[in-house]
């Protein structure tokens, strides 16, 4: 489990996260909702170690990971599927997947033993294994980004806006993949704009507004419509 306590991250003088605390529980899908500019992606980059928090703590099963460099955090098992997919466009699909196992290179077989399993999970990637990743469709690139992250055998999968820029039918497909990963007992932290869909899959959710966690709970406990309105538009003054 990942415990995040009072994390503060700034871009220069502009504070993006103003003391964020939340828990990502083992074996479930925790979803982070919030309007644009709330700091959702900043939180993902901070957990991944690419942005440095200037205060607060992040404990993975009791071990402090705040301040570690990105590659160390990946070796600890916290692996990011970044927004806009970010695959390696000029490398083959297979090389993209092999790149996902960098953190496991010292293991027997170079940590590539999951390659077959990932190709099994995504038959479309197997068909295109020797194609350059830049030639894939958006949905296929998203599958590749997920497959690459799985190659690292993540304890926690951080997924940043997997639905961005994809056609609705592809988004459904991606969420089916996410649902399957959740059902396998994996721990997933999902940041998503598409609150409606995300709440269907989440075991737990948090609402991030203007750099603060303002609300959290289980999807069944709250009125989805009001929550979705806040997730898209931010908090309203009493009307």
């Amino acid at each position, binding site marked *: 489990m990942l415990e995040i306590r009072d994390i503060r991250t700034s871009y220069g003088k502009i504070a993006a996260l103003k003391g964020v605390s939340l828990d990502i529980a083992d074996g479930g899908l925790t979803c982070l909702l919030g309007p644009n500019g709330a700091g959702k992606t900043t939180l993902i980059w901070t957990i991944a170690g690419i942005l440095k928090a200037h205060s607060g703590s992040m404990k993975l099963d009791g071990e402090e990971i705040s301040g570690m460099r990105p*590659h160390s955090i990946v070796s600890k098992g916290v692996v990011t599927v970044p927004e806009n997919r970010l695959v390696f466009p000029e490398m083959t699909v297979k090389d993209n997947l092999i790149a996902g196992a960098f953190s496991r290179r010292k293991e027997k077989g170079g940590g590539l033993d999951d390659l077959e399993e990932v190709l099994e999970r995504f038959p479309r990637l197997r068909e295109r294994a020797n194609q350059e990743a830049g030639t894939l469709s958006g949905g296929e690139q998203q599958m590749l980004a997920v497959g690459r992250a799985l190659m690292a055998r993540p304890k926690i999968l951080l997924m940043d806006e997997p639905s961005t820029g994809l056609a609705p039918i592809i988004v459904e497909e991606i969420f089916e993949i996410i649902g399957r990963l959740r059902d396998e007992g994996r721990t997933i932290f999902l940041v998503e704009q598409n609150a409606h869909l995300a709440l269907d899959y989440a075991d737990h959710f948090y609402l991030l507004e203007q750099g603060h966690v303002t609300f959290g709970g289980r999807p069944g406990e709250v009125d989805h419509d009001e929550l979705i309105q806040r997730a898209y538009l931010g908090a309203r003054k009493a009307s």
Partner: protein
Amino acid sequence: MLLDIVQNTLDGLAIGSAYGLLAIGFTLIFGVMRRLNIAFGPSIMVGIFAGAWLHSQWSAGMIPVFLATLAGAVLASAYVERISFAAIRGDAALASMASSFAIWMQLEEAVVHVFPGRTYAFPTLQTIPMLEIGPVFLRPEYLAMFLTAAALILLLQWILTRTRFGLEVRTLADNPEAARVSGVNVAQVAFLTFLLAAVIGGVAGFLIAATDGQITPKIGLWATMKGLIAMVIGGLGSLRGALIGGLVLGVVEAQAQWFLGAAGREIVTYTLLFLALVMLPSGLAGRADAGARTEALRRL
């Protein structure tokens, strides 16, 4: 006349293969760091002087001189990387370039102080007789230069496509953000890439010095200029382009030298650079790659 052109082309391809190695060294560093190391040539110069020193002190043979050249280039490059790149934030590209210029001056001054004369002798391969194939001549040192460069490029190709380190280098060149979230130790790969580039540059410097038989500290400036021009002609960031740029530069220079003389050669070289910048801003190989990238973006 036609025979002259053939002869010049052969000579130019040999020299051009060494230019290609210099440009590949620049491109490796630029590809991984997105920053220009203009102290690359002077680092090679340090290596060449290390080799020349070994040669003059103990009249060392080719192999020890070769190893000393590589060692000197690698040590000087490691120093440049620590000071001008590792210690400077990744997004401050201009600061790294200015800093590597300062280190360039420092390296050049240091070498001038240790080797106060103007020129030093370097061992050559000229003891091997000239090869005659029909009407054209192949200088043995040119043949050695071309074959060594070809072997090194094949080795580099193997490293980049078949080893895990090579894959890491390619991920960093392709998409640095994605490389970081995939667990690439960016600082370590950048450092190792610097050393790899130093080895490639060191080989190029050795081949060039062993052809000329004499060296001056200005070879640092010369190597940086030739490498940069070849890289720009070929297309920034493409290894294939760097090689093509080097070969084109070598052949054009050899023709200009023969038909127009030394001054004419310089004019032609810089005209070529100018034309490359104006007419082919993405370089000879860059254009196709840029097209492929646009195509990939369009399909998203």
